């Protein structure tokens, strides 16, 4: 049966997850990364309202941990990753420092962007991680990064992570057209979680078939069950290898599901947008649980090892909160400097000065043709 949100919601517990040829260290790392991301998001979610110190919109990614965990093991330090507003998983995937994520959400000067961006606009340029809240905008910018890598023959790749909602936008299809034409080293990762805020994909698009639609543009496309972390790892690894060999671009559509509201910790179920039984299906197929089942079957994980891991993660999270809460708020220094760079070292080096002559204003205006 063709993979889609409709067919998935009719199926039961997912039994196809296999560790097969996966190295044990990779399997365990996938588990560890998913658990770290899950616990981090749970902790932020739990802290959001009682403390009222995170004063920005946060789009939590609980339930969608498999793709970020898989990417985190495959991206190189000098690859670029572009993300949408549901950014924490991707920030995490690029290995950007989590304490700076916490501090950014808390609006502190030690945040990744010193409190200018918040959760949905966060970037960490030192880690080549960039995000923004206008869906396809970041996808479009990733095209330019990939073009830069191609022109400069650097061997780097760019990855754009986004949801199926971004494919409603024309900018997305411009990106398909040009990246396919130029064969760019660019990986598009669609986390199809079915809903753009509360709107079902099939209210917005004729069919749940993004892969089918991008292929004629010259974009190789694969769809996977996105909560199968080892499958995500294998798929992304194979695609990224081909991209590094010059065989791009590629798109991977990962079917997954967000457990929480579109934004914030508040419950948005009064909008009645989720299909009956859907949440139960996805919670039953939690990406962490699915992998944990196999790891335990294989004897690669036991209660003691998991407890150790939980302790380590809890300490990390506590340290991140502490760092954020103890950091100072930013102060306004110069609004102009925050927006404009007046220094121009390159112009200083390359350009000279000259003086004007006398401009004659009595010349006829030009009458340009069409081109």
């Amino acid at each position, binding site marked *: 049966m063709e993979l889609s949100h409709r067919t998935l919601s009719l199926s039961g517990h997912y039994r196809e997850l296999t560790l097969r040829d996966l190295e044990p260290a990779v399997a365990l790392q996938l588990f560890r990364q998913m658990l770290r991301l899950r616990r981090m998001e749970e902790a932020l979610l739990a802290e959001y309202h009682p403390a009222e110190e995170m004063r920005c919109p946060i789009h939590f990614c609980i339930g969608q941990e498999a793709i970020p965990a898989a990417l985190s093991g495959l991206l190189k330090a000098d690859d670029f990753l572009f993300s949408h507003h549901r950014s924490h998983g991707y920030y995490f995937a690029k290995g950007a420092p989590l304490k700076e994520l916490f501090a950014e959400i808390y609006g502190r000067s030690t945040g990744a962007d010193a409190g200018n961006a918040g959760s949905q606009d966060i970037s960490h340029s030192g880690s080549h991680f960039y995000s923004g809240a206008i869906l396809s905008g970041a996808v479009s910018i990733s095209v330019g990064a990939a073009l830069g890598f191609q022109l400069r023959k650097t061997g*780097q790749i760019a990855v754009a992570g986004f949801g199926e909602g971004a494919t409603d936008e024309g900018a997305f299809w411009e990106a398909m057209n040009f990246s396919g034409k130029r064969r760019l080293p660019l990986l598009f990762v669609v986390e199809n979680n079915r809903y753009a805020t509360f709107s079902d994909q099939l209210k917005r698009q004729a069919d749940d078939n993004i892969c089918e639609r991008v292929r004629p543009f010259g974009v190789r496309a694969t769809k996977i069950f996105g909560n199968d972390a080892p499958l995500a790892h294998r798929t992304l690894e194979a695609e990224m290898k081909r991209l590094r060999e010059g065989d791009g671009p590629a798109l991977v559509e990962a079917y997954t599901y967000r457990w929480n509201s579109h934004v914030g910790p508040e419950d948005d179920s009064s909008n009645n947008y989720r299909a009956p039984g859907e949440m139960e299906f996805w919670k039953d197929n939690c990406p962490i649980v699915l992998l944990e089942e196999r790891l335990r079957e294989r004897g690669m994980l036991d209660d003691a090892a998991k407890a150790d891991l939980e302790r380590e993660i809890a300490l990390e999270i506590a340290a991140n909160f502490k760092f954020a809460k103890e950091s100072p708020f930013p102060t306004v220094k110069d609004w102009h400097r925050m927006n404009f*760079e007046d220094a121009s070292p390159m112009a200083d080096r*390359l350009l000279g000065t000259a003086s004007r002559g*006398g401009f004659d204003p009595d010349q006829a205006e*030009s009458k340009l043709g069409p081109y």
Partner: protein
Amino acid sequence: MSRQLSYAKAILEATDQAMGLCPQVIVLGQLVDTQSGIFGTTTGLVGKYGAERVQDFPVSENLMTATAMGASLTGLRPVIVHQRLDFMLYSLDAIANWLALWRFKSNGKSAMPVTIRTIAGKGWGQGPQHSKSLHAWFAHLPGLRVAVPATAYDAKGLLLESIFSETPAIFVEGRGLFSMTDDVPEKPYRVRFGQAVIRRQGKDATLVAIGSMVPVAMRAASLLEKEGIEVEVVDPRTLNPLDRKTICDSVSKTGRLVVADPAWLSFGAAAEIIATVSEELGDRLKSKAARVTLPDSHTPMSMALEKEFYPDENDVAAAVRKSLG
């Protein structure tokens, strides 16, 4: 030794020199690799620098802008070209939601040195979708520089400055200026943003003229000179940043202000300039400030209406006379 070069040739020379000076400079735009070369401003570059650095781009204005932005993050210095400013409006998301705030959003850690060339304004029969002059829209955005060069000299120096600066720039070229020549030094030189120039000294009134209104204003000043009126013509050259000091210094000398802006009357650059002067020295003005602009109407095609639509030196001179009472 002076050398006359047209506005179009000055833009071509600036681009050519930038590409020669720095292998990271690339040019993207529809038809930039053709012989016609965007009214002669890119002609021959593809032969010299190759199709990787001078790329014809799909008719995808938004993606073109975003592509330049992403490429700039990898160390390239892209120049993108729009044959009409109207076409560029497809890229407003890339410009207003991403490019303008990139530096801000990253707390100054990431820059997008992108130059966006766009051609605007008066031309025969260009009508409502081929002539819009929206420099004020872009100048409204923090984080973007906006150049409105009026002469070939300024076009070359400001374009080089844009390409090799760290803040993204929108470079608005006046269609009517393309064949006009000026003294243009051969060497690569810079004209800095935020430095207005006094095109003509005068004591009776300050006439601030923007872009393609600069030659019109200078001709108006010549007409008025014959009547014994000495007009000081100030060309801001860039709107963001705007050299408010030079404008105010001139008005504090003359006591009168007329602004000629090749754009719509309401909410435009002329209003900003008059507001600035009012805030600084409104109580010292000898007469009411005035604007000479396009009417608040879209551009008509018919030459009969076009003639009425665009102000000329007589309109500017009349506004100055009125301000003198």
